[in-house]
């Protein structure tokens, strides 16, 4: 294979040398033959003559050689491409339309592949990224610190194993506090990950009070000041000295999400507290394979270590899924990666359909052109071109179109990528995360491959058909075109595909509308929230409680504020998840939240049975919880849970008493079916960190944003205030993801609609042109303009109707697929089905209007004069 290719390449690139050698070889042969004949007794003149005759045409032989040498196809390709370029220059409208169709489709494909690339394929920009692994089990990528220590100290397949805990955190520079993405990491992080600094150094111990900042932070907050090293910053109540700046291309192991600062695990008291806790599985583990080891070997070794520990009794010996070590590519967190994979695959299918539609379109256009150019092909065949050559020439022309489309697509993708990055919703809530989708070599290769594929997809059938042109028949004065099929499959397929895409978009619109109109189950209007954080070093949680109590009192004293309360998290963003069970019985997974007594009243979530929390539910008194109706039903389908004991925890359970039932409210997303949820009293369940203050106002909440912020800041004592915002705005942002998906899918759906409509228009126009004479005859025989008009529109409409009918049947499948993708999405309802169907019917009438008008305007006299 390779030698063949090299040989061909040599032949191609050293054509002159090769031709010279060939010449010399032929001459040698001829002269040998002449010598031989002269030895037989012929004189030189006769010998030369005879040898020449026998030898045959020198040029002809050389030509046969060229084919045998395998440069025929490539040499012809150049000629065909030049010929194709001339052809296209002669029909710029056709060319522009075809290139634009392909360009749009290739562009969106490139763009979506760019996303796919950055979430699934791209290796980290570190040394030897292929040796970097992430450890996971059953799609969870987090482990306890003791497990980390065991793995780190006992393995032989890894150069090193690093622990990492990403978190939303604060960065305090000279008293100005901002939200950042922090990563608390073990001291061996830089060695294991294989990342250097562009300035300074990485910290190398678990406890050194030093931090590394990202290039983005260096730029944003320090203006790229080279004297930044050694400056003091604060984060989560700790002081750090800046040890280094990470390289520009390294935005953290969690790319495409960015990380802003890295600090050693041992500098965070909350994390030090976890270091002996086997049940707190909080740390992600990254390892670097030794040169001899593979990821599979590392996996089995880690499993073996765990098995040893289980027999030794140091690790819980429940039956658990095996541990897997995977190469880090795209999103490092395996669970997130899987989720992203589903979404990205879905988007890929969607844009793949758009590409198919565009291909069918261009294929149709090429068919039409092929029919018109039949006389040209007939001439070429008559002049001795083989069918193969004609086919090759036409494929070369579609290759040109695809190259044009590919270049157009790349330009477009740069632009759509920027659009995607900008329009992406705030990822995971409270602070805007910048995503980056680059056009790297993978993406460009992808575009090239897609373009080539397009050539074959849209060019092969028309080329094959055109190459069938019979040299003789086409000369008989008229263009022969096979009677076009009554119901062209290509067109119907296009309608089906674009209809399905519209339907998908419609389903998302339907979901969005449902979310916007759904009753969240908690009060939204007239509510305000503030995220705050107390950043005083070494403050005890009792002191924190006191500061917050004062904060609430001062807020309540403000004019326009009715009530204020604390919650560890906002609705629609549960921060805790756990398992809950009766003292005997199955565990039910549930989300959890810690709230102050007045939360239920402030948020208008009624406690329908039992009591709410009170000020006496403190750590000293017995642990109590409130369950929502859904959880109450799940645990005690037939009885009252009030006063019952529950066990909370997925591994090591602790007991608590149920004291009340709260009404169901939206937990994760609006419009969801009720989800189980468990409330802890804030006083018993507060581990520090970011806290939401919820405020009920009697005046429009927007006007209170500044007073609330000022009041909180005036408390001093290290109180930091982040977002302060009316709750309605927050709720609005909570479905920004689905809104984004909806707008992306609607864009693709409309793009597909336009492409398919262009296809319909093109084909119908072409058919009308073919049938001009027939229409003329019919009109001469008494058909009215109206009849003709109706018939042409009817043609388009029948294609659309068949397509829509097939599409509607596929709906069930599409609905199920979407449901699997995102539980929030419900199958398309009757309104969506009707509206999408109607859109297609209207579009098909519009697309056929122009050709129909042209057909009905045929002048029978002129049309018949051709005869």
């Amino acid at each position, binding site marked *: 294979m390779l030698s063949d290719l090299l040989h061909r390449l040599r032949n191609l690139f050293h054509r002159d040398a090769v031709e010279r050698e060939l010449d010399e*070889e032929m001459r040698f042969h001829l002269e040998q033959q002449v010598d031989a004949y002269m030895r037989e007794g012929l004189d030189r003149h006769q010998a030369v003559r005879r040898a020449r005759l026998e030898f045959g045409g020198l040029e002809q*032989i050389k030509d*046969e050689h060229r*084919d*045998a040498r*395998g440069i025929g196809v490539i040499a012809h390709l150049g000629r065909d491409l030049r010929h194709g370029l001339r052809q296209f220059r002669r029909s710029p409208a056709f060319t522009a339309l075809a290139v634009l169709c392909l360009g749009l489709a290739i562009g969106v494909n490139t763009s979506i592949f760019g996303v796919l690339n950055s979430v699934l394929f791209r290796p980290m920009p570190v040394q030897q990224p292929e040796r970097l692994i992430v450890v996971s089990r059953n799609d969870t990528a987090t482990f306890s610190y003791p497990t980390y220590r065991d793995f780190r100290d006992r393995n032989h397949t890894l150069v090193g194993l690093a622990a990492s805990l990403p978190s939303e955190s604060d960065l305090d520079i000279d008293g100005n506090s901002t939200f950042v993405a922090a990563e608390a990491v073990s001291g061996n992080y830089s060695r294991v990950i294989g990342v250097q600094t562009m300035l300074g150094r990485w910290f190398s111990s678990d406890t050194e009070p030093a931090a590394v900042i990202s290039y983005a932070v260096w730029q944003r907050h320090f203006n790229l000041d080279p004297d930044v090293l050694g400056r003091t910053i604060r984060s989560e109540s700790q002081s750090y000295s800046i040890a280094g700046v990470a390289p520009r291309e390294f935005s953290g192991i969690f790319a495409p999400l960015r990380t802003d600062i890295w600090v050693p695990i041992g500098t965070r008291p909350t994390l030090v507290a976890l270091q002996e806790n086997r049940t707190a599985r909080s740390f992600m583990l990254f390892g670097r394979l030794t040169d001899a080891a593979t990821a599979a070997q590392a996996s089995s070794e880690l499993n073996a270590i765990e098995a040893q520990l289980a027999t030794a009794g140091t690790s819980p010996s429940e039956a658990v899924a095996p541990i897997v070590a995977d190469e880090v590519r795209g999103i490092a967190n395996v669970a997130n990666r899987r989720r992203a994979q589903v979404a990205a695959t879905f988007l890929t299918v969607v844009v793949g359909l758009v590409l198919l539609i565009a291909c069918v379109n261009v294929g149709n256009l090429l068919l039409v052109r092929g029919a018109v150019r039949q006389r040209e092909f007939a001439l070429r065949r008559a002049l001795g071109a083989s069918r193969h050559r004609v086919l090759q020439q036409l494929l070369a022309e579609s290759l040109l179109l695809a190259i044009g489309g590919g270049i157009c697509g790349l330009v477009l993708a740069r632009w759509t990528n920027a659009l995607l990055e900008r329009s992406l919703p705030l990822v995971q809530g409270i602070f805007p995360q910048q995503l980056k989708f680059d056009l790297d070599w993978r993406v460009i290769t992808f575009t090239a491959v897609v373009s080539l594929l397009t050539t074959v997809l849209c060019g092969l059938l028309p080329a094959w058909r055109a190459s069938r042109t019979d040299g003789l028949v086409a000369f008989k004065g008229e263009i022969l075109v096979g009677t076009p099929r009554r119901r062209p499959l290509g067109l119907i397929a296009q309608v089906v595909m674009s209809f399905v895409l519209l339907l998908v978009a419609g389903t998302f619109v339907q979901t969005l509308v449902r979310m916007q109109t759904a009753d969240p189950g908690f009060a939204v209007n007239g509510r305000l929230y503030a995220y705050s954080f107390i950043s005083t070093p070494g403050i005890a949680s009792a002191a924190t409680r006191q500061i917050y109590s004062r904060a609430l009192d001062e807020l309540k004293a403000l004019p326009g504020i009715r009530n204020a309360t604390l919650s560890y998290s906002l609705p629609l963003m549960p921060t805790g998840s756990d398992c809950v069970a009766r003292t005997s019985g199955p565990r039910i997974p549930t989300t959890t939240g810690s709230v102050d007594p007045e939360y239920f009243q402030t948020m208008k979530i009624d406690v329908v049975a039992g009591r709410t929390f009170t000020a006496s539910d403190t750590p000293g008194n017995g642990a109590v919880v409130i369950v929502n109706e859904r959880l109450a039903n799940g645990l005690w389908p037939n009885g009252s849970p009030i006063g019952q004991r529950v066990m909370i925890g997925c591994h090591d359970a602790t007991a608590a008493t149920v004291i009340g039932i709260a009404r169901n409210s939206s937990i994760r997303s609006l419009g969801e079916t009720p989800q189980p949820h468990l409330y802890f009293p804030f006083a018993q369940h507060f581990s520090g960190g970011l806290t939401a203050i919820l405020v009920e106002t009697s005046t429009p909440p927007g006007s209170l944003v500044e007073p609330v912020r000022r009041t909180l800041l005036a408390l001093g004592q290290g109180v930091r205030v982040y977002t302060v915002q009316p709750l309605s705005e927050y709720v609005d942002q909570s479905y920004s993801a689905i809104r984004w998906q909806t707008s992306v899918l609607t864009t693709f759906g409309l793009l597909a609609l336009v492409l398919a409509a262009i296809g319909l228009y093109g084909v119908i126009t072409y058919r009308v042109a073919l049938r001009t004479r027939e229409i003329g005859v019919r009109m001469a025989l008494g058909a009215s303009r109206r009849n003709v008009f109706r018939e042409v529109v009817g043609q388009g409409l029948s294609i659309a109707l068949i397509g829509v009918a097939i599409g509607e049947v596929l709906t069930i499948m599409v609905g199920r697929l979407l449901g699997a993708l995102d539980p929030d999405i419900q199958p398309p309802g009757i309104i969506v089905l009707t509206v999408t169907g109607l859109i297609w019917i209207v579009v098909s009438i519009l697309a056929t209007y122009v050709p129909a008008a042209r057909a009905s305007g045929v002048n029978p006299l002129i049309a018949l004069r051709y005869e």
Partner: protein
Amino acid sequence: MSDEQIDLPQGTLDLLILKTLALEPRHGWAISERLHQISSATLRIRQGSLYPALHRLERRGWIKASWGTSDNNRRAKYYGLTKKGRTRLQTEISAWRKLTTAVAQVIESV
């Protein structure tokens, strides 16, 4: 040119060329002369088929070309068998034997 010359069946030319090269590298003319000789003047290869065939074989990596000097001190292109070509020759020979045996059996049976 004798009347007894026959057309070669499709695909046998490759076999013949490989066989003539089994002993030593030869140039094109020598190949055609050698074939003519050892087939008792029954086979004469047209130059128009010989050279394309040589280039085809070279492309497949069965023979390798190099420039050398001929007996009469002229520069000539010599073709020699490669390792791959040698294996190929064995396969082709055994395939040919099978074919001829089978054909002979059929002919004699009727």
